[in-house]
Every structure is written in C-alpha cells, then in structure tokens.
C-alpha cells in the first residue's frame, strides 16, 4: 500500500522479495545495504534464527532520491522462504506495492520454485490481490553455479506472462540493482496511473 505524504512531499512504497528457502532473498538486501550511500539507507533489520534463516522478515528502508519534488522511499522486505512459515509470509505480503520473486536457478530447486510461486498466488488471492494486476518481476538467482536450468526453461516454467526478469548472482551483486530498478519502475508507473 503506497503512502503519498503531501505534507512531507514523500512517496513511500513497499516491495516484497518472495521465493523458496535459501534462494537468496536476504542476500539481495544485504548486497543493497552494503552498496548504498549511508545517508540513503536505514538499518537492515533481520529477524532471523540463530542459524541465520529468516524467521519473520528482513527490512531495509531505502531513500532513492527526489522525483519531481517528492522524496522517494522504498521499504524492502523479504519473507521467510521455508514452507512452514506460511502464516508469516501472508502477513508480510499485506500492503505490498510490488513483488520480486527470487528463483533459485539450480536444477534441484525447480520444484521448490514452482511451489513457492503457487504459494505466492494463493496468498495474494487470500488478500484479494492478483499477481497479474500488480508490479511483479522475476529474478533468476545463482547463475554462477554449475547445474543450473537454462533461462528459457525457467521462463517457460515460471514466467508465462513474460514479466520483466533478471539474471543474478546476489552475493556478487550481479543483477541485484537491475532487479530493484526494474521493480521500482513498475511500482512508480502504477502509482502514476492511480493519481
């Protein structure tokens, strides 16, 4: 749910990184956090288990700059990817202005990708939201690993509507900002349509 504050001349949007466990959602946020000017970001909050698996969410507030006199802020959230944290995932999806689905490119993770994408659609439907009618991009992560699925197969399995997609290697940062930018563009254009 975007929040336009005319008093402070601010636009605030919420982006959610979704995807199966260990696909690299938190790594995306950590990379962004490490590269962004300290004045443009807040704290990276990770509510994780002792083994650094996301328990509830990661949160990174990001100020991208000014656009037509409006300060543009994005609040980036990740969901816990593990199947049994579904209740938490639903909560974090609430009010999302855009969703980034991070897919794990490894062959053995294809089933988890498909399962997680279906789970995303179910959870959105519960909130009377549809993937088709909201800003949505895909990130094919871990492209540096051996034993990965070719992008055309990933596209056929995960992206039938051919929404914007990006190849990535999150720990090195490849594709991380491209994905964020692609999503921000869709979100701001959607907001533009609404005003």
């Amino acid at each position, binding site marked *: *749910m*975007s*929040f*336009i*504050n*005319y*008093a*402070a001349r601010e*636009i*605030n949007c*919420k982006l959610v990184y979704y995807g199966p466990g260990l696909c690299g959602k938190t790594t995306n946020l950590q990379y962004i956090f490490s590269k962004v*000017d300290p004045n*443009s970001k*807040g*704290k990276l*909050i990770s*509510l994780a288990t002792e083994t650094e698996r996301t328990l*509830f*969410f990661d*949160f990174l*507030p990001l100020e*991208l*700059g000014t*656009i*037509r*006199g*409006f300060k*543009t802020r994005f*609040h980036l959230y990740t969901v816990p990817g593990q199947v049994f944290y579904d*209740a*938490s995932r*639903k*909560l*974090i999806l*609430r*009010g999302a202005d855009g969703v980034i689905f991070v897919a794990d490119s490894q062959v053995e993770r294809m089933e988890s990708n498909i399962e997680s994408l279906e789970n995303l659609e179910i959870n959105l439907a519960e909130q009377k939201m549809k993937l088709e009618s909201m800003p949505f991009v895909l990130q094919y992560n871990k492209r540096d690993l051996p034993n990965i699925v070719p992008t055309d197969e990933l596209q056929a399995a995960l992206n039938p509507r051919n929404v914007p997609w990006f190849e990535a290697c999150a720990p090195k940062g490849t594709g991380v*900002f491209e994905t964020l*930018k692609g999503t*921000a*563009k869709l979100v*701001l*254009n959607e*907001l*533009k349509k*609404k*005003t």
Partner: protein
Amino acid sequence: MFGTDLTLFEEDERRFTAVLARLCTDSKSRAVFLIDKSGQLISSAGETASVDITSLASLTAGNIAATGGLAQLLGEKEFSVLFHEGEKDHLHISVVAQRGILVVLFDQRSSLGLVRLRVKRASEDITQIFSGMAARTQQEAGRGRAAFQTQFAQITDEDIDNLFMR
C-alpha cells in the same frame, strides 16, 4: 473503506500532529507515533530524535500483524492493544480505525492507566481524521486526475532512471 492507498495532505498531517502532541502531553509520555498498518510513519510527537522511527514503524507493524494472526487463530477479531514493559521504558501499542497503529512510549513519569485513558480519547479523534481522509480521497478520485493537481502524474521513465544514477 481503507483498502486503498494512503494519501496524506498537509491539513491532515497538522491535525494528526495536534492530536498526538496533546496525547503526549496529557499522558505524560516521552513520545507518540502514528503508523500505517503497512509500516509507514504517518505522524509523531514528543522526544522522537533519539528513536530510529523507520525501524520502529516497521517492527511495530510486524508486531501488530503477527498478533492479529494469533487473534484469528484463536477466533478473535483482533487483539487491539499490546503492552511491552521494559526496565525504564514501556510501549503501549493500539490499533486505531482499523488502519492506524498508535504507539505511546512512556517511562516512570506516567502510568499504564493514564496512557490507556488518554489513548482512548485520542483514538476517537484519529478515527475522525481517517474518516475525513477516506471521504476526501473518494471525492478526489471522482473528480479525476486533473483535479488532483499533482506533479506526480508527470513522472517520466527518465525521472525514474535518474533515481538510480547516483
């Protein structure tokens, strides 16, 4: 009613701030925050400089969402009030008008009873402001884009690209 995006104009901001400032004084609290349920800060009053407000807003929204999930699990509509007791500082968190979260940060200068009492009155005022906002947003939507008179509609792809140039 509140399923739409939130648009805050100067006048609403002033009204919210006035209510929060009064609540802060009347309840002898350190600081008061009004947060959107999705984790965005709407307004605040009191000693806010020492608090990381953005993180507070996000964590509070997560907290309320998790508690709401628990309530539904138990067949309750919601748990509308949360109280966190610390050694020095305490937090009183309540849901207002279904879409806002009112957070009161207080210490030994106040008491839970006083905070609860003052929050009740402030919540009524905040609910009224939210209702006014919702009605106005509907009216504005009806009048269409032109009447909205926002520069926002003129944003180009180039403007968006420039955000990432820094």
